[in-house]
């Protein structure tokens, strides 16, 4: 039951009410600022191309299907609710496998397989061009699409040098066989791409564990362990060690985007 006094002061509470939404955020104190995170963590992935090639070749041989999906891709699709459609032109892909061959067959006629995924560039062109700041780079380096903001202009797809982004031409719900509650599904008319399994990363960080994206986990579990994920700001992490020991190649490094997916052992041992 409301008292008369309360009613009267509430007329004066106009000002207090106006800042209600602001209050919610004002009270939230960050135990760890963005700058601190930036100094502490930068996620990256290293791909051992020889192991990867070995794995895919084995699978192709086993199934006889030249378009077979290796464990990493399957895990990515399931984990992130990536829909599957028949039509290759509009089928969204977060992670996919590409076949490489050197231009000079006389030197090396062998084919290699590499996974292609979002490179989580240090200077991501997609973030530069996004109209609505829907694509953004988190302080820990992961580039994410905030689909609440995406308007589907597809400028980021044009700008991305790696073709890492997919547009939802159809309602993704139609192409889903099972659902992972941890990751939101996307709607028709927005752009999506690999997030380095940001939900897994955040959960692991909060629990103080080493984060492992789904593809990496699946690669180790079912594949040859070609993928390595970790924090390159930490010199002791596995990724740092591997990158120290090997010559790493970045895709289209000449553009200066500084991608954070590194390919090792390109062209064999």
């Amino acid at each position: 039951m409301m008292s008369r006094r309360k009613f009267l002061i509430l007329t004066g509470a106009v000002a207090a009410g106006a800042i209600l939404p602001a209050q919610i955020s004002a009270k939230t104190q960050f135990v760890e600022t963005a700058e601190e995170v930036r100094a502490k963590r930068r996620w990256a992935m290293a791909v051992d191309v020889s192991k990867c090639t070995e794995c895919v070749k084995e699978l192709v041989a086993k199934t006889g299907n030249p378009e077979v999906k290796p464990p990493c891709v399957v895990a990515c699709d399931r984990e992130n609710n990536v829909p599957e459609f028949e039509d290759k032109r509009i089928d969204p892909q977060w992670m996919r496998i590409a076949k490489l061959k050197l231009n000079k067959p006389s030197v090396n006629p062998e084919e290699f397989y590499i996974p292609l995924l979002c490179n989580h560039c240090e200077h991501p062109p997609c973030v530069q061009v996004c109209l609505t700041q829907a694509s953004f780079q988190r302080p820990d380096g992961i580039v994410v699409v905030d689909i609440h903001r995406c308007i589907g202009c597809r400028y980021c797809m044009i700008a991305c040098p790696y073709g890492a982004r997919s547009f939802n031409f159809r309602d993704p719900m139609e192409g889903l066989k099972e659902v992972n509650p941890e990751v939101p599904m996307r709607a028709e008319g927005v752009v999506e791409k690999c997030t380095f399994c940001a939900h897994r990363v955040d959960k692991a960080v909060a629990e103080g564990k080493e984060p492992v994206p789904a593809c990496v986990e699946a690669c180790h579990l079912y594949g040859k362990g070609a993928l390595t994920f970790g924090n390159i700001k930490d010199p002791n992490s596995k990724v740092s060690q591997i990158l120290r020991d090997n010559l790493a190649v970045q895709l289209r490094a000449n553009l200066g985007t500084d991608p954070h997916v590194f390919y090792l052992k390109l062209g064999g041992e």
Partner: protein
Amino acid sequence: MIGILFGVIVPYIAVAIFVLGVIYRIVNWANSAVPLKIPTTGGQQKSLPFIKRTIYDRFDSPYTWWETAGRMLLEIFFFRSLLKNTRYYLDRVSQKDARWLWLFGILFHYSLLLVLIRHSRFFLQPVPSFVEMLSDIEAFKGVFIPQVYISGLAIVAALFLLWFRRIFLSRERTLSLPSDHFALILLLAITISGNLIRYFFKANLELVKELLANLMIFNISKAAAIADQIEPIFYVHFLLACFLLAYFPFSKLMHAGGVFFTPTRNMPNDNRARRHVNPWDPEPTAPIFTKGITVAGRTFKSKKLDWDTYYEMYRDQLDEIAEGDYMIVPEEL
């Protein structure tokens, strides 16, 4: 206590005043006679078959019932007369279009319509899908939470524009009476308080709908109990709206009903095809003046100039004309 007073008693009174008041005004107008058929003709009449009438003429100078109805509908839905608005310049030959008033008027009235349709969600159960569809279309769905309804903001803007006309244009300032400002301020207060509830001080809308549902079925004790739980900011909006309802029938806002009665618009221009009968002089055998009019107890009666009187008065001249067999020929020089 406040809940009962503002949440129960006031709305009942306001609705009663509104409904009875509007009916009273309509009946009151209908009680007056329409002595003459006086449409304002804004275009070519229906006349000889070779005189072309354009579609605009049909609506501006209607001849049939349908054309008249069309004229009224265009008037009501598109404010067609205001659309003809021009402004006169003393120093120029030409006149310019000045349709701002039309634009602001349309903006306000259609926003109001949308706002009212959206408010029907508080009265109708289940909420009709077209109401939801309209709300979704006008809101930037998903961009702002809560949704931002364009009509809700546009109506405030339009009211301010209409009010600024009255404040800043010297001619309009001269014309405006306090009641004109008052109506605008009242509407502004309602719309602004509505927007405040929507975007800043949230009220529990579910309780609001429950309150209204209980009021509708006269479940007063339940309504009063619910009314007490609703946030006070709601009552600012609600009370003002109730006041508007009660104020409506007795103010110029009644133009909403009056526009249907305008004799210059709702009559066809078919005087020559259908005779209009004056209800208070249905059989005019002789002019009223010759029957005499009574003012303050005294009767003033004019003499009737019928042919016989006339003939008596000018007998010689008329006879002379008759002698010439009613024919005039030029005089032989």
